[in-house]
Structures are given as structure tokens and as C-alpha cells.
């Protein structure tokens, strides 16, 4: 009888271990795309004349000032999702974007129509946050502020930070009025 009991015990233990072994097959070494990592900056465009009404920016192109790759090219949209520069943690970092409206006007033959470029500057303090084994670290951006450079013909009339802590992509962080 004792033997039988011992055998039962062994069987229970072995199945335990096999079950536990299967557990170890889970893929926690790949960063799942659903895991929130370093967030983008989300900007929404509003109509300056009608409060609370979004308004698309016509044929918009966006490029980071020092870069030569367009983030957005010739799209009529009412919101932007932009990556922020990260040069130093826990210090003030700056991203400058050139927002060009009416991109198509540069492409057509008509000399009377031209595009209009405005520069916006975003300042923020990146903070390092541990996510997981597979994803490692992400950065969030605190104390965000935004300005628009004044030029003789600005199409952007106002810029307002509505969420100064950029730690998710659930809602807009900055509103642009035009």
C-alpha cells in the first residue's frame, strides 16, 4: 500500500513539474506591441473661430528641424502623432518641428500660391521608467511646454499645452489653433 501511495505522489509531483515547465514556454522575452512604451506627442488642430471644433490642416507636411526625413508629408489631417527627441534624461530637452501647410502649392505651376511653414518648439524633461524584461526602459516626458515662433505670416495662431505630462497616447497633449 505504501508503495502505491508513493507512486501516486510521484505522479502528482511529475505532472506538477510538467505543468510548471509549460509555463516557462511563455514568451516574456518579446516586447508585446500592446505594452505602452515611450509615448508620442499628440497634437490636435482646432478652429480658432469656433471653440471646441477640430479643423483639419490642409496638405500638411511635418519635419523635425534638424532632420531630412518627413514625419508627415502632404496630408490633410486634424491631428499629429510626433516622436520627441531624447538627448539627456532629467534635463530640459527640445524638439522643434516645422509644420508646413498647403504643401501642394509648392508643387503646382501657379506662382501666386505658396506653402506656409511655421515652427513649433516643445520643451520637456524626459524621465526613465522601467517597463519589463523584454521592453526594458521607456521614457515619459514631464513638464511639457510649447511655443510657436513668430514670423511675418503665421498660419498657427495659438498653441496650448493641455496635458503637460506626456506619459500615454490616449489623448492629445497639445492643441493648435488655426
Amino acid at each position: 500500500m505504501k508503495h502505491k501511495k508513493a507512486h501516486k505522489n510521484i505522479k502528482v509531483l511529475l505532472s506538477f513539474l510538467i505543468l510548471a515547465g509549460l509555463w516557462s514556454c511563455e514568451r516574456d522575452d518579446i516586447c508585446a506591441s500592446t505594452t505602452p512604451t515611450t509615448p508620442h506627442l499628440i497634437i490636435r488642430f482646432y478652429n480658432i473661430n469656433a471653440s471646441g471644433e477640430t479643423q483639419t490642416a490642409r496638405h500638411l507636411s511635418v519635419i523635425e528641424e534638424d532632420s531630412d526625413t518627413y514625419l508627415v508629408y502632404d496630408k490633410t489631417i486634424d491631428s499629429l502623432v510626433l516622436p520627441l527627441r531624447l538627448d539627456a534624461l532629467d534635463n530640459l530637452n527640445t524638439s522643434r518641428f516645422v509644420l508646413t501647410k498647403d504643401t501642394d502649392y509648392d508643387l503646382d505651376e501657379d506662382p501666386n500660391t505658396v506653402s506656409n511653414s511655421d515652427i513649433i518648439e516643445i520643451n520637456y524633461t524626459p524621465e526613465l521608467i522601467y517597463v519589463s524584461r523584454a521592453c526594458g526602459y521607456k521614457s515619459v516626458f514631464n513638464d511639457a511646454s510649447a511655443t510657436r515662433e513668430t514670423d511675418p505670416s503665421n498660419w498657427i495662431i495659438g498653441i496650448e499645452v493641455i496635458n503637460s505630462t506626456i506619459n500615454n497616447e490616449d489623448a492629445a497633449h497639445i492643441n493648435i489653433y488655426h
Partner: protein
Amino acid sequence: MKMQRISIFTIKLIILMVLPLTSFAQEDPEIQEIQEIQEKNVNDTIIVKQKYGLRLGGDIGKLVRSFIDEDYKGFEISGDYRLTRKLYLAGELGIEERTIRNDYLDVTANGSYFKAGIDYNMYGNWLDMENLIYTGLRVGASTFSQNLNSYKIYTTDQYYPPFSSLDSQDFKGLSAIWIELVIGVKAEVLTNLFVGFDVQLKGMIAEDQPSNLENLYVPGFNRTFDSGRFGFGFGYNVSYLIPIFKKNKKIPVEN
């Protein structure tokens, strides 16, 4: 010589596997009754000497891995003391250094640990043989440090060059405590020399986490999992029994 040892070991392992089957066949209640009667009759029992003492050994698997895996260094010594026919007091003492790296993290865990508990031999041996198929319970504790060697911030956006850091950061004075369920075998391959294999299922009770990081590996506990507090380990041991005294074991004669 080596071949001979291996063949002896193989034969013993086969015996270990086959033996439970033969003993199964004897579990008819009537036979058991007869056995009980026989046990009362001193003339019908064989008395064999069983060795009691301290068994000391080392983990060969960890030693070998230290040489072939550049991200691992470790060694473990183990010991057990026989309390009764089936019960052993058992423990392990070890050090481990393990580096875990991927594209975004490079962390080295370094520390020492000990485990203490019991082993229970579930195997009824033949005559004077003293092999073990055992299950055990341990409480393990570890003190360790985590060194963040480097990291690269994870981002889904490739627009800017990634931000990475090579500034090493050390988190010292961390500790952890866990329990283990052990199952293993130990076979006596030469007089007093044992070779064994065991697997461990672990459950973390408490651990210190480094700030803004987590324990990816805990010395003694092995790697951790995102899903919870469970862990696994295995060992491959060679040990030597230092006999201290002998005790009689009564075996009923079957015919």
C-alpha cells in the same frame, strides 16, 4: 575503468526503474497479511545494516556551465544528514553570477544563497541498497546585487537615433526568500559515491526589487518570470557519503 563505472551506473538505474514494478505485484492484501505475520516472527526476517551519516557533494552542472557559458558563473555545495530510514536533513550553499542581456537591457545578478530543508526517500530499496528517489522541501534565501550594465530606451519609433546608456548602476544589498519543492534521484554508483539529478519548483515569498528595475535573475532562485512568483531549477550532483554509524533495517522474508 570509466566504461565499467558507467555500465554499473546504467544497470543500477535500470534496477531503480524496474524495481517499483516488481514490488507492485506483491500488494495483494492477503500477501501483506502474511508479510505482517512474518515480520513478527524474528526468524523470518533478514537484518541488513544501513549506513547513516553525512553526505557532501557539489553541483557538477553549474561547474560545467561556468566554463562554457560566458554569462554564467556558479558553484553549489550540498549536504544531507540521514535522520531516519527515509528522512534526511538537507541543504545547499552556493554562489552565482548571471548576466541577462537582450537588445534593450544588460543586467548582471551576483550573490550567494543557501537552502535548508528535508528530503524524503520514497523508494523502498532492495536489501542493503541505499539509493534514493526522493521528494524534498526547502526554504531558500539569497543576498545579491543587481548591476545594470547598459540599456537602450525602448521606442516603437525609429525617427531619432535610440537613446542608450553605458553608465553602470549597481543595486547592492538585495535579498530574497523562497520555498522549493524538489524531486530527484540519487544512485550509489560506487561505495559511498552518489550521482544524482533533481528538479526544483520554486515559489518566491519575498524579494527586494532594485529601484526602477526588477530582479531578472536571483542567485539560487534562477530566472524570474513576468507572470508571477514561480521559478524552476535543476541540479546534477555528485556526492560522497561519510558514514558515521549503522542501523539495522529489518526485511521480511517472502517465502
